[in-house]
Each structure stands twice: as C-alpha cells, then as structure tokens.
C-alpha cells in the first residue's frame, strides 16, 4: 500500500514554544486516519505544515509523494481542507464561497455540490455575515466534499454541527472512503472517530505517542476484570501486567494489560470461578490514558 502522508521527525518552534517535537505520522492511501491529541498537542500545527502554510524547522514530510512546502500549489489541486473555525466574507453568499474554493482546487462536481447542499440543508444564498457557526462550517464542508480531490484534511470539521448533521457528515466521509479517497480527520468526538477511522495516531506535546488500528490500541491497554471465586485468590498481585488489585473476601477486581490477560484468567481458574465479567477498555479510557499528563508516559 502506498502512503498518502509520511511525516518523520518533524520539529517546529514558535519563539520558545516547541509546537512539534519530532512528530511522526503515516497515513495509508485510501484510509480514514484519526488524528487525536489533547488541546495544544500540535495537531493543527502539523496540519498547517502539511498544507504548506507553515514551514517546519527540521524533519521530513511528504504528501501524495511530494513536498508540502515547495509543491504546495500543485498539491492543493488534489487536497481539500476544512478548518475547525470557518470565517466567511461578510458580503459574499455561501454559494459564491463554495464555487470560489471549487475553482481554487481541482474543480467542483456540480451534481455532488447540489446533493451536499441538500443533505446538509444549507441555504447557499445567504450572505457570510448571517450564517451561524454550524452553517459556516457547512459551507466549508460542502466546498471540500464536492471537490474532486485525492486527500481530505479535516481539522475538527464537525464543531458546531448538530447531531443530525454529524450523521450526514459521517455518511459523506464513508462515501469518500468508498471512492478510494484518503481522509486525515482530527477530532475530539470519540464516537465519530470510532465509527469512521481505520487507524488513529495519538499525539501529545508535539510527539506521536501511539499509532495503529483501534483494535491494536485496545490491545495495548488494560482490561478490567471482576470475578467471584470459589476459593481464595492466590498470587494475583505477582503476575506481570496486573494493576489495582482489590480483594474483598472471595470477590476480586483488577486491571490487567490486555496482552497479559491469559495468565490472570489461568490463575483465577485455579481458584475456581463462580462469575466473571471482563470489559475491554472504553474509547474514553483509552484516550484519557494517553491524554493524561504523566501516567501515560510510564506505560
């Protein structure tokens, strides 16, 4: 599989602030890639570097096989971008703006434009100053999704959209994937990420801390186990990868690294199991673990 985006060891400083500190990122062609991280982690800075809006201090980056800074204009024919905060011109209509962006990219699919306007329930005749936050977002989304491009870069694209419109957005992204387009999606809406993304990269303080499919990431984190045993539990605390063991009589609660689950279950079976519940980590737990300041680093 070819890579749509490859980034290696990217550094970018603004004065004394190190926004990017050796960031790596790999996005396969045709996948929807989630780009996650707490506020200020460097997501938008990375995206701006990828768009050739910022120039990295060091490191390497390639989009669709080309240099994002030097080949910016040619690349942008094949890229559509939606920022999280769209500003429009006060005296230009939404329709005018959509067509402007279409012309400034590889062109606009008229039928798709009409279809998207209808699905997003956007009134393209209103002037920029009269749109609400969500409707400004729709203008940028329609312009991007109706463009004939290979790569979509979406930076919190659904901020301000109602749940209904978020649903429309999801089905649109799925259609894009079906057409073989690549999507880089930065988002804080975890259900959206779970529903759409083939793989995710989690960054913190300008570095990539985790990258892989959601299943992979789940595998790397802890499963919580609670059991009621026949006999007394034995030697659980000494098993590798076991944390937070809480024994009350014959009831046991514990957390275990998912790849060490086998040994724990064997130990529990030795004591005889009356009941057992085991729950994989929720997405929230997964992210909190990576977002939280210190704990995550000492994995």
């Amino acid at each position: 599989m070819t890579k749509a985006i490859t980034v290696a060891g990217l550094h970018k400083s603004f004065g004394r602030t190190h926004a990017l500190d050796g960031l790596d990122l790999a996005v396969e062609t045709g996948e929807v890639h989630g780009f996650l991280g707490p506020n200020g982690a460097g997501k938008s800075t990375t995206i701006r570097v990828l768009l050739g809006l910022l120039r990295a201090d060091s490191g390497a980056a390639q989009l669709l096989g080309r240099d994002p800074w030097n080949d910016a204009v040619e690349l942008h024919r094949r890229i559509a971008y939606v920022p999280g905060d769209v500003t429009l011109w006060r005296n230009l209509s939404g329709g005018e703006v959509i067509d402007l962006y279409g012309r400034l990219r590889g062109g606009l699919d008229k039928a798709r434009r009409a279809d998207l306007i209808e699905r997003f329930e956007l009134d393209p005749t209103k002037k920029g100053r009269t749109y609400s936050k969500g409707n400004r977002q729709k203008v940028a989304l329609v312009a991007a999704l109706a463009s004939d491009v290979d790569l979509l870069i979406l930076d919190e694209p659904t901020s301000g959209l109602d749940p209904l419109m978020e649903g429309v957005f999801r089905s649109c992204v799925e259609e894009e994937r079906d057409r073989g387009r690549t999507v880089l999606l930065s988002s804080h809406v975890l259900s959206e990420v779970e529903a759409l993304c083939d793989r995710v990269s989690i960054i913190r303080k300008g570095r990539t801390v985790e990258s892989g499919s959601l299943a992979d990431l789940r595998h790397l984190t802890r499963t919580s186990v609670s059991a009621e045993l026949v006999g007394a539990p034995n030697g659980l605390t000494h098993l590798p990868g076991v944390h937070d063991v809480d024994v009350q009589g014959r009831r046991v609660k514990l957390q275990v690294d998912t790849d060490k689950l086998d040994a724990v279950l064997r130990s529990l079976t030795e004591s005889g199991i009356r009941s057992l519940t085991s729950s994989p980590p929720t997405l929230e737990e997964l992210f909190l673990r990576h977002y939280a300041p210190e704990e995550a680093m000492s994995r």
Partner: protein
Amino acid sequence: MTAIGQTAAFAPRSGGSRPLAGTGALLRLALRRDRVMLPLWVIVLGGAISSAPNSLRNLYSTAAERSNVVESMSTNGSLRALYGPAFSDSIGGITAWRYVTFGALMAGIMSLIIVVRHTREEEETGRQELLSAAMVGRRAPLTAALLTALVANAALALLIAAGLGGEGRGGALTLGLAIGGVGMLFATMAGIAAQLTESARLAKGLTAAALALAFVLRAAGDAGARDGSSVLTWLSPVGWAENTRAFAAERWWVLLLFAGAIVVQGVIAFNLAGRRDIGMSFLPTRPGPAEGRLRAAGSLAWRLQRGSVLGWGVGFLATGVMFGGMTEGAADLVGDSEKTREIFERMGGQSSLTDAFLAAMVGMLGMVAALYVVQTVLRLHSEETAQRAEPILANAVGRIRWAAGHLVIAFGGAALLMVLGGLGLAIGSGKEPGPILGACLVQLAGIWVFGGLATLLHGVFPKAAVAAWGASGIALALGWIGPALNLPQSVMNLSPFEHLPSLPGPEMRWAPVLTLTVVAAGLVAAGLAGLRRRDIQT
C-alpha cells in the same frame, strides 16, 4: 518511514513553486468584495477634482485675477505649507495646485486600506488559511491586493486625466498619474507593513503615519522654498506629486521616481511575503500578562484604544510644533497682498495675520481631530460587528456602560489632542499659550458634533455607521479647499466648524460654541437611546 530520510528535509526557504497561482481568482474575489467601496472612492475623489475648474472659473473669471491670486498666495510661506507652491496661473494650474496634496493623501489612504484589507486582514481573520490551502501561491494574496489597488488608482488617474483634459491633456494626465503614483507608492508600502506586523490595524496605522509624515515633510519644505525645490519636499512622495508641475511645463521624469519607489517597495514586499509562515510576522509580538487587571468595560475600552490615542497625541503635538514654527513666516509676509489677506480672513477671521495664521492651523487641527473622534466612536461598530461586543454585553454590563467607555475616550481624547496640538503651536510659535489653548478647546464643540453624529448613526442606523467617515471627510474638504474655491456661504455652513469663532484674535462668541455642544450632546443622547432599543448586530 524509510522512503524519506532526514536528508530530504525542507529545502532552503523559498516561495515554493508557482508562488503566483490563484492571483486571478483572488483579484476577482477582491473586486467582488469591494464592488461598492472602490467605485465610491474613485468616483467621489476623481469627481471632486474633475469638477474643480468649473468653480475656479466662477471664482477667478479673468486671467488677471488668477495671476494676482497665484502671485500673492504662492509667495506666502504658510499658504504654501498648506497647498504647496503654484507653478502656473492657468485654470488647470490652479486646480493642480489646490488638489495635488489633497488628492495624493486621499489616494494614499484609499490604497493602504485596500492592500491591508486583502492581505493582513485576511490572515488575521483566518480566511487566508482556507484560501491558501487551495491552489493559491504564497505571493498571490499580495499580488492580488496590489493589483486591486492598481485598478483603483488607474481608474482614478484616468478619471482625473479625462475630467481635466479640457485644461490640457498633458497636464491632466500628469496630475492623474502623480496622484495615482502616490496611491501605488503607499499601496506597496502597506504591502511591506502587512508582512511586518501581525495586526491589520497596526499595519494600517504604520502606513498612515508614513503618509502623515510625507505631508508634514512637504509642508515644511514648501514653507521654506517658493518653487518646491527644498530637500524636505523632495524627501516626500507627496512633494514629488507636486513637483511634477502639472499644467506648468510638466516634468515627466518626476513620475519615474514613483515608478522606481513602487518597484523597490514591491520587490521588498514580495520577498518578505514568500518567506514567512501564514499568520506570522517579521516583527515579533510580545507575550501579554498572564493575569488581567481589567475590571470593567471602561478599562477594556481604554486597553483597546490606548495605542491609538497615544499615536494621535504624538502626531498632534509634533504637527502643532511644526505649524507653530511657521508662524514667523506668516508674520513677515513677503507678498502681503490684499488677496492673501482676504483668503486668510475667510479661513481664520479678521485679525492680525499671525493670529489669522494660528487660527487657520487651529482649525486644521480641529478638522483632523474630527477624524479621530469618528474613528474612536466607530470602534463600537467594529467591536459589535466582529461579535466581540456580544460576550461583553452578556455579562452584567449594560449597553450604555459599554458604549460610554469608548465615548469617554473619544470625546475626552479629542480634548486631549486639542490641548496637545495647542501646546505644540504655543511651543513652536513662542506665543502665549493661554489664548491658543482656548482657541483649541473652542474647536471641541465642532469636533464633538462629529462624535455625536457617529454615536447617533451607530445607535440608530448601525448599517450606515461608516457614513460618519464621509461626513467628517466632507467637513475636512470644505475647510481645506472651500475658502480657496470661494464656495457659497450656505455650502460652507454645512460644516459645524464654520460657525465657530476663529480664535485666537477676534472676540469670543459663546453662543455657537454652546449651541454646537448642546447639538453634540443631543446626538449622543439620541444615539444611546437608539442603542438601547435596537438589536445587537450579528
């Protein structure tokens, strides 16, 4: 990851390939956005200049009269400071003499607004980010902005050349090109300023300050030399425009100075534009305090406006000192003719020439302070339309208190400016400060009327709030050019300043001062009442 090694890192800083891609689309975007503003600027400014010969013919019907007025007025240092020297007594020559400085300043203001609006302002609002993520080269926004300015200035130059063609084609074209040249010179300068600063407001302020300096240099140079040959005049682009000598054996080569300066500044701006990150600037911004001490809407207003007040204050003090220094020249007048005295009396009232000169300068300061007060009151409008007022008003802050913070700075700031200008005049002229300061404060009644008008428009007709600029601009044009055009008193009376006593010199008349102050207060009250009743603009 192995596909690209560390060696394939970023190439030396360049503009990237195709730095001009998308210029055409951006130019069309700019012209579409400015479809009302640009024609208005060009037609009003070009129309005013083109119609000058008509009124001049009425004023000076015979060649002898024209020759007399030119002879008397261009030998007077202080009048030369205002208008520059006259090089010809033809109708065209007098038109050029009267309008070249005015036209050049206006073209400069128009151009710097256009260029900053389509460069730094787009970055500041975040719109440029989305545009540049499409097929837009790094130098395309600047190019499109300069081309927009070129369209406006070329249209203005053509309108002047066509409108004054009857007075001599060569002269008309020279005047048009000189005024358009000043416009483009400040357009490219604004292009540089937009790269240097992170704020559009600051970029406009820096360029406007350079424009004001160009005017002051020309004025100081012409006060000393009768033929525009002073070094100071030649240091000023406004002085170059005058030195093209339209309708008086035109010096075409002076236009080459514009071409050279425009090219040099353009190259600098282009080089800077291709080399920087979007949204960033070459002048670093200092970090602000981690904890705020702003307690109320009023202190926020002061925090927002203090930079502007400081800039205007320094400008007023410096201009006062410079104009004050020219008072001596007005007193031992070389060509103390009847005509000069007459014109001065129209501008400054019947009194000694020294007083009349000072009164004329006080009047100038007053009219410029009206621009300050309009700008400061209209900050309410821009805060509101940028939706920064909304979260303030969502707190326990009433609309009146919110507005009052800015109004105090506008009306009180105008008083501060006039005191500083008066002090400058007193220092420069070495005259007793009391009467000069008094004269300056009397102007406040007229200045405040414009503040009241702006408050009224913002409060009651928020969509038309910017019309306050038009009103203060018309008053400035009337006060500056009206006396020399001998406009009928009924037209001159449109300006509130016309009703004020021309101090220092004559007797103080309280009635008009009090009347205008009451008018201003009434306008403010009506504006605030309207503000309480209407919807907040989104």
